[in-house]
């Protein structure tokens, strides 16, 4: 990553500003959605969806996951799998 | 009198449905013995035959063995049988298939640090209301005197008496820490988590005096938290129960 050409990094910087704007807007959106008094299930689904979109923006552009090598994805795939198991199974039993 | 109940292996089976648990334990242990003896004798044979001898060199050509893969497949298959034919039905019977309420004796057992409070609903079949704030030495369950349903309830400490050949539904609760209500001879064990009530059930097929065990570490008195589990004939149990109710209701009418 650090061996980027001068032009390449310029493009990256422009994308950071775009991502920042998107994140700010999404934050305001999620607060607005929560004020809509949706049914309980939809409120959770909406909030989590927006949070996931924001998270993937941060991870994809700021943490350069979009340009990362496969070994990092293998590591994150298994971590995410066990994260889900830990999140869901206790509540089911 | 105690000896014939207990020994170095499985204790006597006093429960009508206990044979299923014993059968599964025996089947699994036979399966384990067969596997271990076969596998261990192969190990010993290989050690003796291929020990280091002068002018003998190991041959690196790995002969591909067919048998082990079959054995592994067989083990996997038998485990499926163990699960579906034995463990799932027995466990669901113990956890889900409760006897019919009207035919069964309902009892509540409240565990506390180092004693079992047994609470019978009495003739009206209703348990009196309990309130933690009312708990005192003389009223360990915190029974609310104002509640009419509780007036005829019989309460004992560490004494669980049940009639023989009658299904018993036990409602378990704990006042302080995690205990575990276990009767080895009945093949019954159920963790009692404070903050939740959980139900278990069993049916005795033989009279006698047995013991209730606390199977989960619950503090420094865990080892002496022994309860007495007495199975009596139906009429013997009724006379005992009537005497207790009379004693309890007798006190109520001055």
């Amino acid at each position: 990553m650090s061996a980027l050409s001068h032009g390449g990094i310029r493009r990256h910087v422009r994308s950071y500003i775009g991502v920042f704007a998107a994140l700010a807007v999404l934050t305001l959106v999620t607060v607005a959605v929560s004020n809509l008094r949706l049914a309980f299930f939809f409120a959770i689904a909406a909030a989590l969806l927006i949070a996931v979109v924001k998270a993937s923006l941060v991870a994809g552009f700021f943490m350069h996951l979009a340009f990362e090598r496969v070994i990092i994805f293998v590591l994150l795939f298994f971590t995410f799998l066990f994260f889900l198991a830990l999140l869901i199974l206790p509540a089911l039993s | 009198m105690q000896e014939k109940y207990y020994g170095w292996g499985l204790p006597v089976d006093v429960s009508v449905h206990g044979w299923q648990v014993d059968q599964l334990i025996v089947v699994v242990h036979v399966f384990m013995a067969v596997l271990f003896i076969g596998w261990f004798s192969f190990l010993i044979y290989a050690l003796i035959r291929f020990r280091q001898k002068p002018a003998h060199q190991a041959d690196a050509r790995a002969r591909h063995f067919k048998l082990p893969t079959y054995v592994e497949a067989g083990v996997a298959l038998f485990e499926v049988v163990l699960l579906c034919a034995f463990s799932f039905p027995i466990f669901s019977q113990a956890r889900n298939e409760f006897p019919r309420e009207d035919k069964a004796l309902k009892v509540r057992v409240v565990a506390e640090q180092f004693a079992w409070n047994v609470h019978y609903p009495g003739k009206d079949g209703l348990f009196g209301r309990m309130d933690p704030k009312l708990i005192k030495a003389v009223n360990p369950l915190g029974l609310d005197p104002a509640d009419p349903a509780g007036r005829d309830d019989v309460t004992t400490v560490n004494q669980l008496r049940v009639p023989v050949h009658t299904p018993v539904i036990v409602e378990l609760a704990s006042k302080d820490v995690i205990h575990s209500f276990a009767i080895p001879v009945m093949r019954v064990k159920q963790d009692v988590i404070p903050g939740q009530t959980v139900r278990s059930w069993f049916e005795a097929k033989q009279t006698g005096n047995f013991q209730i065990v606390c199977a989960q570490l619950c503090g420094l008195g865990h080892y002496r938290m022994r309860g007495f589990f007495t199975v009596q004939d139906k009429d013997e149990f009724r006379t005992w129960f009537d005497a207790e109710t009379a004693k309890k209701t007798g006190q109520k009418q001055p």
Partner: protein
Amino acid sequence: MSTAVIPYISESHPVTGVTNSKLGTWCFLASEVMLFGGLFSAYVLLRTGTLEWPHGKELLNVPLATVNTLVLITSSVTMVMSWASLVMKSLSRYRFFMGLTILLGLAFLVVKAFEYGHKFQHHLFPSTGTFYAVYFTLTGLHGLHVLGGILVNLYFLVPGSRLWRTNPEQFTGRIECAGLYWHFVDLVWIFLFPVLYLL
């Protein structure tokens, strides 16, 4: 400090394509995902366990938290800008953006401290109820992670940057890893904010 020469510290491994420190940082972030996974699992189990669970909106100050979220997002941007300016070989712009990141992080902590102080005044402590216990524990542990991130960034702002003169490549890699950690801390807050404040 003499260490035997360890390869791939600043140039990436020919096969895996990553440097040691980046793979190490991602492993550390994986363990942090599991740490917050444990805490979120506690939140899910406790919330599904009880019937009455207060809505975050009534008890917590949502507008202030929204501002706080924007503060943290801005600090994420300035962090990645500080790394980008190192790639563009200008130490001064790096120092500017890194300083900004640290200030924004401190601002986030000040807002949190204000929120906590406000609650303590109203005698709302972790021991008042499970909702407050979850709120204080999760945001508290997240706050400690933010504090840790600030200390690391402070080190890289002044003493750490001497490495720029001797080995700029390695220093850029270090800032990238500090940036990964900081973005992760922001990512956790992105999930914490709706879960605690909005649902």
